[in-house]
């Protein structure tokens, strides 16, 4: 999934960091064996 943020002051910085945090958490518990999420069959539905 591709997430784009437009505008980078308080709301934009906070949003982008929150997105990265969720991605980091998901990657750290990922068991799919895929090296990039882009091709992962779980798509945006991984936990």
């Amino acid at each position, binding site marked *: 999934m591709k997430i784009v943020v437009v*505008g*980078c*002051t308080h709301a934009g910085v906070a949003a982008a*960091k929150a997105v*990265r945090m969720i991605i980091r958490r998901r990657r750290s518990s990922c068991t799919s064996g895929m090296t990039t999420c882009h091709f992962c069959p779980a798509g945006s539905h991984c936990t």
Partner: protein
Amino acid sequence: MYERDDNVSFLSCGVALYLGGEVKNLDEMFYENPAHLRTEGIDVRDKHDVLRIDSDKHTLTIQNLRTTEVFTDTYDKLIMTTGSNVVVPPVMGVDDTRVLMCKDARQAQAIFDSAQNHHHVYIVGGGYVGVELAEAYANTDHAVTLLQAHNQLLNRYIDEELSAQVERNLQEHGVDLQLNTRVDSFESDDDHDQVLIHTNGADFHAGLVIVCAGFVPNTELLRGQVKLDARGAIITNDWLETSNPDILAAGDTCAVRFNPTGKLDYIPLATNAERQGRIAGRNAFGHVQKYPGTQGTTALRLFSETLATTGLTSHAAAAAGVHAASVIYRDNYRPVFMQPNAQITIKLVYNVDDHRVLGAQLLCAHDISQTANTVSLAIQNGNTIEDLAYVDTLFNPHYDQPVNYLNQVALLAVAQTNA
């Protein structure tokens, strides 16, 4: 992440500190930078202006302001955080180069530079930005004239009882306060390198005018594509999704739910932007977290005093048709044997029908800002004046009286409802 400026995370909230000389370097007003965000895995494209969004096709048209190249990008989820612009009053002559606005880093620097050469600073607008700038320039030995159209300062935040104290404080520090003074137009006087401010009363000759007339949401990119309110602010649901669920929005670009009334309102504050941004980022992955709404809690320092507010004023309650009453508590904030001491003034606004706490305004030379946060939580949680009257608060002679001032003001409200 696209940003049209060459910087990210500018804290407008600190502009007055820079202009007043308390912070020496404007660079200290940035708490993030593109290079650091990139190390966190965020693809930051600064100096990139988003020109168009096509929500049907999920595309953006962007101009790279360094190369002038225009290109298209796609998204699955878009988070709109384009913030607000300053209100430029629709009066003749507002484009005079001596009339400056105050929001971003460039504007702050322009004001700073101009004030080096002009002893007398004219400020138009008596909201919190105008008042903060008046305080800053009164502290730097500038002559300050503050023009306010309304009959009181800070009318969106406090009622007359407290604004009278604020006005007295500013005047005692030499600020020339012109209430009920509406600017009708500006007229250039290039021979004297001045601008003439025409008002409904007197005219003023100024070398530097700073207009602080509020903010409007910057939402042109989505006009006609998502629901906006009458001001043009994006309407979101509790998940911060717009009427198009693939577009979320956060910060000054949005209307927010104002908990004391339960209605949508436009309350452009960094606090809302920060909280909403974090929640919108999480909700881009689904319905993770609801936005709890806002009380519009805010504070400002006025010389040695702290003014802190949250929720509804009596005026705003009346305008919203809320059946509200209020009480005012004034006393020393701690026992008289503790010196130095200071008087605290608290106005508490509550709902007459269900006794829910609706708002508070606090003013004291002691730092009572965190008490506004306590009341904010009470409002968000739907607490009553009885809850606040008997909530467990600390007592220590350094900090308060045996019955804390927050309990005291709520006890007054309870007594008033029982009378």
